[in-house]
């Protein structure tokens, strides 16, 4: 999408046809990230939420950032994963909507504290026993269907995401799609954020969604941690 440089609160009015395209992309059956190759998830979610105001988190680039981008540690992390869960959309939405529940199955999160119906504070586990933190606002909240959120200014790491709950065909339950985008910042944090999800973000988020499914369907998360073996 078009962006004005630098000014963090610049008004940005995407064309109506663009918004329509995003709406069908995010609500549809295709891969969201395929359609978002060029643009940012944050921009699309913000426009969809009806906000003309787009916070341009990472447009003003320092020399260090440009260098980091060149060697590949400043690439945005974009992940899309879908899982089918044998529960109603209502039940799944309700559990997810309390963001404080998320760390029970999302290992990369240390804690989430909900401040009010819009804002929450997130702390993520980073390598070497460090953490990164941010405040996030809910951008759009459609009951039993869709929640989108994005970090606000001052975040250690600019990020945005959405979760979508769609009835699966027949008696197969609910399809839950999660799309996340993390934009590594400049400076020393860049490498930390690049490793937030280890070497394979897709796999990590896939594992986290699977744990969500286990918790919602079986009531517990399967584990073998702490069992005996003959390894000394």
């Amino acid at each position: 999408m078009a962006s004005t440089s630098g000014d963090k609160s610049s008004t940005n009015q995407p064309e109506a046809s663009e918004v329509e395209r995003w709406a069908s992309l995010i609500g549809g059956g295709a891969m969201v990230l395929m359609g978002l190759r060029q643009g940012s998830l944050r921009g699309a979610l913000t426009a969809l939420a009806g906000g003309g105001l787009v916070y341009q988190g990472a447009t003003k680039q320092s020399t260090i950032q440009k260098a980091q981008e060149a060697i590949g540690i400043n690439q945005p992390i974009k992940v899309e994963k879908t899982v089918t869960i044998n529960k109603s959309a209502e039940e799944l939405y309700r559990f997810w909507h309390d963001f404080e529940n998320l760390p029970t199955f999302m290992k990369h999160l240390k804690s989430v504290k909900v401040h009010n119906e819009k804002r929450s504070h997130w702390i993520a586990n980073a390598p070497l026993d460090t953490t990164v933190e941010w405040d996030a606002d809910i951008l759009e909240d459609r009951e039993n269907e869709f929640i989108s959120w994005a970090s606000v200014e001052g975040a250690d790491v600019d990020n945005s995401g959405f979760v979508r709950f769609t009835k699966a065909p027949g008696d197969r339950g609910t399809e839950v799609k999660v799309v996340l985008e993390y934009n590594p910042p400049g400076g020393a944090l860049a490498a930390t954020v690049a490793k937030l999800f280890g070497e394979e973000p897709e796999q990590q988020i896939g594992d986290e969604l699977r744990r969500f499914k286990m918790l919602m369907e079986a009531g517990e998360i399967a584990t073998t941690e702490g069992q005996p073996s003959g390894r000394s």
Partner: protein
Amino acid sequence: MKAVCWNGANDVRVQSVPDPTILNPRDAIIKITSTAICGSDLHIYGGYIPTVQQGDIIGHEFMGEVVEVGKGVNNLKIGDRVVVPSTIGCGNCHYCQGDMWSLCDNSNPNGWIEEKLFGNITSAIYGYSHMLGGYAGAQAEYIRVPFADVGVVKVPPDLPDEMLLFISDAIPTGYMGAELCDIQPGDTVAVWGCGAVGQFAMISAYMMGAEKVIGIDRFPERLEMAKKFAKAEVINYEEVNAGEALKEMTGGRGPDACIDAVGLEAHGVGLEGFYDETKQKLKLETDRPHVLREMMVACRKGGTLSIMGVYGGFVDKLPFGAAFNKGLTFRMGQMHGQKYMHSLLQMILDGKLDPSFVVTHQLPLEQAPHAYNIFQQKKDNCIKVVLKP
């Protein structure tokens, strides 16, 4: 406690390991009274199953007594005598609720490995590789049983272990193998492999109305057992060409259904056998599909192949043209223990089935290395070993 640990190809040791503990609300701890060595354990023993690690406790066919339950288990109490199916199912997912327990979505904590290799995640199996869950196995004094509220069957105190143990794995595997054949009156069913699973597949095929059952093996004691207990006709494939013999025994048509109770370590003969052994040793092929090839050619047109022997990876040189042009149906998979156990127990209680005939060796757990050796080498007429912790 003492447990049988895998330490590399053809190297199992009885080691001292910590006792298992409750890790999740739906867990139970079972004190094991009998634990069998399954033919599929030989695939692990031989080093053919990927993602088995040094120190893993193996074994998956077992029974025992409940000694501890998690707070989510309300249907079991301390002292209950139970048999546990080898595949672990949560009971809540789409597959468990459809009675396809070995396809459970939720029991495998290491699903990402399997998803990469197989495209999807199936149920965990006790002591059967990290890809299939990494759960500690049953050749031990105690075991942690997850989802114990749906995953065990209580058995009465008055029957000996040997009458009940095999509803954990060998009987439902054989039974499902026969069920997948969709046997019709007049059908001939050929069963490759006359070990415990093959014996129960043959008995089940007759129960389901087969006209004739033919067992195929190369060990005289197994063929004898098939004749005596399963009332099968038999073929020793080292004496005659199995395919030709099957044709002659079925009026030139070929069997209506073929059951593979052998799996990935099949012994081929001649050039083909040499080809598979060599490729497997060079890691160019993980599985030796001799039985699959023979079944595809031997089966009658429009017939069914039921595959219960375990495959873990890749096979090659399958005569797929034969399968395609003959319009064969392939059915297969790990058995859905929880689906069959209750009715199989009832058959045993009603005196319709006495599975104890398959046991050729009862040994203390400490003798596991010896037991694996004689079972693998088919020494001392070994067909089925039960270990006593």
